[in-house]
């Protein structure tokens, strides 16, 4: 092969310079970076606010705090740290009830929409679910108090009569369930509130099941339910856990519905059919806030800090579980 003697004529440098899209490109890069940073700044600001504002109450002695703040009674076993303990317990208990009730129903709804319903019905149901997620929690609270609580009361009586020997369902000493404003009701209303988010996320997960694996199961003579157990659930397991955690995150922070429904109390009891046993952090803050003095507000913010930490932990856990999906070798 002979070498060519002639060099190609050098192109003018301007041909390789900037281009018209360069400015818009770098502009949007900055814009989105700024938006991304904003969320970090907000989170840091909230955490700082909580810490700074809660500091006075957290560092004050228990006795002293009891004298200044009306709802803190160290002599009755309700110092700040003890109240936080009760409230964390109540919050977790009520959220757990909500989660236990909501998860199976939500998975059922999601499966129905993704694998059983005719396409048109599935679409309509999908919109309805999204709509339910948009109903304000105060409406759920009102509905819970006005409709659900009276409706549930005879059912609780039935539970207490026949299953009262289980500590969970024990009735008050009289044996009579005289009100439905109990932790169970709060849990049920919360369950209804978190069903939409759990079903919506699970539905998306189920719809992503590879057709390849679904057909593999069906072609072996699997029924639809067997196909779901073989192909859909294994593929969607981590997504389902993530969806449940997102629901839990919402249940933990819910204020209005719980505040309106529950007869509040501060104990570590398991008696979910009796009033004045439990309360949640968010509902307790909303309850005490209007009457609180400066130190009282500081104490409430300390409780808020506890809630912030719990939700943060739950959401981080959910994100972590969902992110493991990317490594999941479902596609092959």
């Amino acid at each position, binding site marked *: 092969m002979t070498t060519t003697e002639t060099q190609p004529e050098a192109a003018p440098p301007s041909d390789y310079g900037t281009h018209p899209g360069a400015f818009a490109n770098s502009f949007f890069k900055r814009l989105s970076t700024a938006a991304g940073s904003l969320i970090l700044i907000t989170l840091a600001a909230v955490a700082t606010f909580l810490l700074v504002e809660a500091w006075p109450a957290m560092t004050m002695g228990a006795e002293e705090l009891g004298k200044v703040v009306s709802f803190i009674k160290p002599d009755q076993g309700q110092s700040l740290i003890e109240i936080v303990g009760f409230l964390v317990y109540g919050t977790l208990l009520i959220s757990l009830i909500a989660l236990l009730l909501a998860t199976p129903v939500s998975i059922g709804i999601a499966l129905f929409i993704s694998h059983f319903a005719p*396409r048109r019905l599935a679409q309509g149901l999908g919109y309805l679910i999204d709509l339910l997620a948009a109903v304000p929690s105060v409406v759920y609270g009102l509905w819970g108090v006005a409709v659900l609580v009276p409706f549930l009361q005879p059912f609780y009586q039935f539970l207490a009569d026949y299953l009262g020997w289980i500590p969970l369902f024990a009735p008050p000493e009289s044996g009579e369930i005289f009100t439905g404003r109990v932790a169970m009701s709060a849990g049920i209303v919360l369950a209804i509130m978190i069903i939409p988010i759990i079903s919506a996320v699970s539905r998306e997960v189920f719809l992503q099941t590879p057709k390849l694996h679904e*057909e593999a199961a*069906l072609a*072996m003579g699997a029924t639809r339910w067997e196909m779901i157990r073989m192909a859909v659930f294994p593929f969607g397991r981590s997504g389902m856990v993530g969806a449940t955690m997102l629901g839990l995150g919402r249940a933990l922070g819910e204020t209005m519905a719980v505040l309106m429904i529950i007869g509040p109390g501060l104990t570590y009891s398991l008696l979910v059919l009796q009033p004045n046993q439990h309360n949640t952090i968010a509902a307790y803050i909303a309850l005490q806030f209007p009457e609180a003095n400066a130190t009282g507000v500081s104490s409430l913010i300390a409780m808020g800090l506890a809630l912030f930490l719990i939700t943060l932990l739950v959401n981080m856990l959910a994100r972590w579980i969902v992110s493991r999906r990317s490594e999941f070798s479902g596609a*092959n």
Partner: protein
Amino acid sequence: MSKRIDVNNLNVYYSSFLAVEDVSLAIEPKSVTAFIGPSGCGKSTFLRTLNRMHEVIPGARVEGEVLIDGVNLYGDNVDPVTVRRHVGMVFQRPNPFPTMSIAENVLAGVKLNSKRISRSDADDLVESSLRGANLWEEVKDRLDKPGSSLSGGQQQRLCIARAIAIKPDVLLMDEPCSALDPISTLAIEDLMQELKDEYTIVIVTHNMQQAARVSDRTAFFNIAGTGKPGKLIEMNDTPTMFSTPSEKATEDYISGRFG
């Protein structure tokens, strides 16, 4: 084990669109029958009607009869789930279940429909199925490893093992080698020759050399144009089809003049 299939005047529709028109043919037991034809001619669609897998696609339906040893698959008291236990299927892309081990994959179909199976029977079945799929020697030391850890060709043979573990009468293969390299393709083709002693095998292939190599009889499907239904043009013994086809369209296709 091996059964004969007769198809009489079968039309396949996707909603109102006629995808395959008026197919009548007979598939002999203990033989390999190949369906060839250009893309979109309906051969895969037609294959799926032989075990009612087309019903997985919304809107798909058929008119006509598919008789397996005289029993109409579209009769009143026939359950598609049961049909698929008699007519197994292997797909274009290997699809072992990624969350199951190799042994669990083989047993996946056997454990369906609430059947219980003892440990030793299960072990025997895993071995015999994997031997049947010419995979045993390669995987016998790692049966508890995930099925997705195998190579593409091994995965496809695992899928064949999974299909024959439930002892079907017929084995449908929808372009089983199109995602595989030539060595793996050869392994599967050799396997088909062994399997036809026991099963009726129907294979859809884009590869005419493959049809000529593996099949006893060949059916040629064609389509008149976009939006027109696919039709069976002719069916005959494979050597005749590839030497002296009776239709001009078949000759054009196999000689590479179109498609």
